[in-house]
């Protein structure tokens, strides 16, 4: 695949072979994270809404490759507060950078930006729509922990209804003969459109409301946060919150190769007593984000 000068907007723009090529290149950067291939290049990180982790991960990737970063981390610091359109901001910044990484609360903003920019765009999240680098780093992490992406049993836990990350992961993993174990409260089940996607790929899914039941059956547990705002009834939230907290005790009887992932930040859905367990993998997962972003930036700038 030639990604040179192409924007990275949505996980739906890729096929299986393309995912694998990016993961292979990320494996190369995992082994060689510091090299000066980006010397003389400027990358803009435009965060119209704050997301410190994602921004730092991108900036770390650029810095480790010897490039320079410009940008802002909050729309309040940008000219959009003066009423400038996104299109104008992007056209202007195109003059200052070789590549733009952007995060924006409005859905479809990254696709639109890629049409008006004269340099490639990497989507670092457009509202509840897409966050493709997160999805790729999750695939990378799953492969790293299991040695393969094929034929795995993967549990997704928490807010499956609104979780953008989960929808993208389900779609991407559908290329790899995954069996999906979907654990959520009744009111936060995976949307039927995503379930239809699983079915249309002739794959299986199982739905659960009980977290403990699923633990012995899977290779990966992907935990996500359940947000208070999703519940009309605060008592219901309190009940649900506690029943979807993973503790070390619950992990007894798990498969030996089980690894626990989480896109972070975590609130209380994984108890801290899990952190030192060898099955906990979420901090390593965050580190993998740097390698994936290095791989993407290097490919898009034609350096790899």
């Amino acid at each position, binding site marked *: 695949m030639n990604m040179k000068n192409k924007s990275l907007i*949505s996980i*739906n723009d890729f096929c299986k072979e393309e995912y694998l090529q990016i993961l292979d290149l990320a494996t190369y950067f995992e082994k060689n994270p510091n090299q000066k291939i980006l010397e003389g290049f400027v990358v803009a990180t435009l965060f119209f809404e704050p997301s410190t982790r994602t921004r730092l991960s991108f900036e770390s990737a650029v810095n480790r490759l010897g490039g320079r970063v410009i940008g802002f981390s909050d729309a309040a610091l940008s000219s959009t507060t003066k009423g400038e*359109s*996104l*299109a104008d901001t992007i056209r202007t910044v195109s003059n200052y950078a070789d590549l733009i990484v952007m995060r924006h*609360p*409005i*859905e*479809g*903003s990254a*696709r*639109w930006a890629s049409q008006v920019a004269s340099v490639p765009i990497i989507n670092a999240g*457009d*509202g*509840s*729509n*897409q966050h493709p680098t997160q999805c790729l780093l999750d695939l990378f992490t799953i492969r790293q922990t299991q040695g393969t992406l094929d034929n795995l049993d993967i549990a997704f836990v928490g807010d499956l209804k609104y979780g953008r990350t989960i929808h993208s992961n389900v779609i991407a993993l559908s290329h790899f003969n995954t069996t999906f174990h979907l654990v959520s409260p009744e009111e936060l089940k995976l949307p039927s*459109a995503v379930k239809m996607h699983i079915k249309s790929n002739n794959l299986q899914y199982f739905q659960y409301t009980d977290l403990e039941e699923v633990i012995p059956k899977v290779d990966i547990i992907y935990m996500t946060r359940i947000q208070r705002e999703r519940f009309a009834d605060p008592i219901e939230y309190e009940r649900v919150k506690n029943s979807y907290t993973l503790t070390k005790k619950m992990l007894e009887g798990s498969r030996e190769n089980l690894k626990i992932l989480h896109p972070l930040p975590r609130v209380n859905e994984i108890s801290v007593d899990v952190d030192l367990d060898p099955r906990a993998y979420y901090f390593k997962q965050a580190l993998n984000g740097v390698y994936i972003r290095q791989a993407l930036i290097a490919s898009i700038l034609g350096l790899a």
Partner: protein
Amino acid sequence: MKPESRKKLIVSAIQNGTVIDHIPSHAVIQVMRILNLIQTDHQVLFGMNLDSKKYGNKGIIKIRDKFFDDVEINKIALVAPTATLIEIRDFEVISKKQAEIPDIVEGIVKCFNPKCITNYEQVRTRFRVIDKQNLRLLCHYCEKITKNENIEFI
């Protein structure tokens, strides 16, 4: 006056041009907007609530000295799926065709997702038609689906 000739008066013949027949009456103005007939220099005749054997009630538009390519014609299929396009040259019917739902719908439908960029900035909407029968449109920008019952024209 015989009914036949009265009918002729209502729908008077044109020498060259296009007749769009069997438009649902309520969609006539919409079709005219989609085909840019509101600002055209061509002579345009239109009628609504005319008798139709097939549909009971119909609208019709005639445009003198103007012919449409398939891409333009297919745009009206969303609002007027029953429409027939008749091309006339020298008072003769040269061709008759049905409007067909296109693969891509651009610039005529609003995205139903209020958080979509097309509802914030001056972006021409663009959808891929993922289901022609039930009319489901996938937004090129926010990747959400606008269903038939939620379609609103710009």
